[in-house]
């Protein structure tokens, strides 16, 4: 009898219905720019309503924001490195390969040139290997200090309200939260996203029903209040650097 009850419970648990939330994030950098998918940005889903997560939302609001440019300027990074990171919206040097033109010639990034020279000595004068592995000879702060700072800030926020899931948008700004229990969640990017001259924070309440499927219409997220947009972010001018 007990075994039968357990089996029944197991069956119910296994078959417990879950839902899918399909995000589509589209942004406009300014009025003249076209709407585009926001690629490669992480979103978090936190259980509860906005009211239930009030403390977290206040913490998000209060957190100091150091932009990428400010972080690297403070480190004394060259303009060439800052531009190289900005060109691909990179949080660290790992997000793009370092091509030849950035270690020699007019477009060379000084920090890469130094690391490349060290790598050549270390890796047997093989230029290709030295270039591909030059990140190992950059200082930790230059390499991924900005990313690590962001991770620390995220972890501090998530201690207040652990997210159930986090996903990153793909090239087109689409992402899926899967296997979600039915209920109310707060969709947030936790740390404002830089969009050129502005930063955007999204905190929206989302209802997930059992049986919501990836085939359903996407949950539209944007920085502009347009038709069908269900979550509009709060946009602010990008903060100035402390030394500016």
């Amino acid at each position, binding site marked *: 009898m007990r075994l039968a009850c357990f089996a029944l419970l197991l069956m119910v648990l296994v078959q417990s219905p879950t839902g899918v939330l399909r995000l589509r994030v589209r942004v406009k950098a300014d009025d003249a720019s076209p709407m585009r998918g926001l690629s490669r940005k992480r979103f978090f889903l936190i259980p509860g309503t906005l009211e239930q997560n009030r403390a977290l939302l206040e913490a998000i609001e209060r957190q100091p924001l150091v932009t990428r440019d400010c972080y690297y300027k403070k480190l004394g990074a060259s303009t060439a490195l800052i531009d190289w990171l900005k060109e691909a919206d990179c949080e660290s040097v790992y997000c*793009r*390969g370092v091509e030849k033109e950035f270690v020699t010639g007019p477009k060379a990034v000084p920090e890469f040139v130094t690391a490349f020279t060290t790598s050549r000595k270390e890796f047997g004068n093989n230029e290709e290997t030295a270039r*591909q*592995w030059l990140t*190992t000879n950059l200082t930790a702060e230059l*390499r991924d200090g900005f990313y690590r700072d962001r991770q620390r800030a995220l972890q501090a926020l998530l201690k207040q309200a652990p997210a159930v899931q986090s996903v990153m948008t793909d090239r*087109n700004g689409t992402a899926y939260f899967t296997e979600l229990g039915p209920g109310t969640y707060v969709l947030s990017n936790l740390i404002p996203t830089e969009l050129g001259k502005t930063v955007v924070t999204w905190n929206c309440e989302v209802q997930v029903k059992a049986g919501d499927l990836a085939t359903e219409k996407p949950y539209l997220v944007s920085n502009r209040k347009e038709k069908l947009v269900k979550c509009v972010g709060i946009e602010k001018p990008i903060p100035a650097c402390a030394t500016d």
Partner: protein
Amino acid sequence: MKTRIKPLLGLLLICLYPCLSVAQKQPVDYSKFSHATPKHKAACNTCHKITFPDIKDYPDHDACVSCHRPQFFRGARPPICSVCHSKTSPRDEARLPFRNPAAKLQFTIEFPHDRHQDVIALLRFAHPRPQNYYNCSVCHGQRTPAFKAVPTAHASCFNCHWKSQQPVADNCNGCHKLATPFTRAEPVRISSKFIHDGGGEKKQHVAECTTCHINITKAATLRGLKPDVPVTACTECHNKEGLRQDLNKELVALDKNRNFTCAYCHAPNVGNQDPPASHYLIAERPPLKRKDIK
């Protein structure tokens, strides 16, 4: 009398158990090396030479001889040699391939896809030069037209984790966790006709990986990770009004003949089964079993 004998017998068995278990203890099989043996649990670089860009070979004899001298010099064909050598003879140096594919794996690998997605999988500059940018293909090359490969060496890891980014090269435990020996499971593909790179009539199967592998960016560990691709990833193109109707066509064919084999995506082992409810959902029809088709 009987009640007295039973506890006495029990006591006797308890006393004799250690002797019996020693008597039953199997002799050590020195042809099988286990990293789980307590004395084999020292830091990896005690025995392995951690070289760049990969660890290329078995440890030197010194690593074994320090403890296993008696096993080394035992007869003409010491079993311990067969851990590394294809021929157990003092006159033959031939060795098994390092990372012997026939051997069971002794370590699982901790790899947080989510973190690596954050830092390396930008792919802003998509095609025509995806290989030049740090993305999924840094680690997952093409193995067969249908399947991508998983890294089998350290080069793609050491690129960042050689000496600066933890876990670094000599911190093996940062990624490798001792496990019960296991054989790597071959990936299972439901839609066996799918070809990754260069697939599709217009060679357009080049979308970025996370477009279809929707759970990768949330995966903090490899445990329980499945390359689960929802059918919607396919039907976004293959069953779209005005574009293609590949799924609908096969469901219609099945309506006419319950023995129809769905062959556009599937091999017969899958194509002969009942289409799952998700497929009917895409086609906006109620699900049907083959046996219910007249």
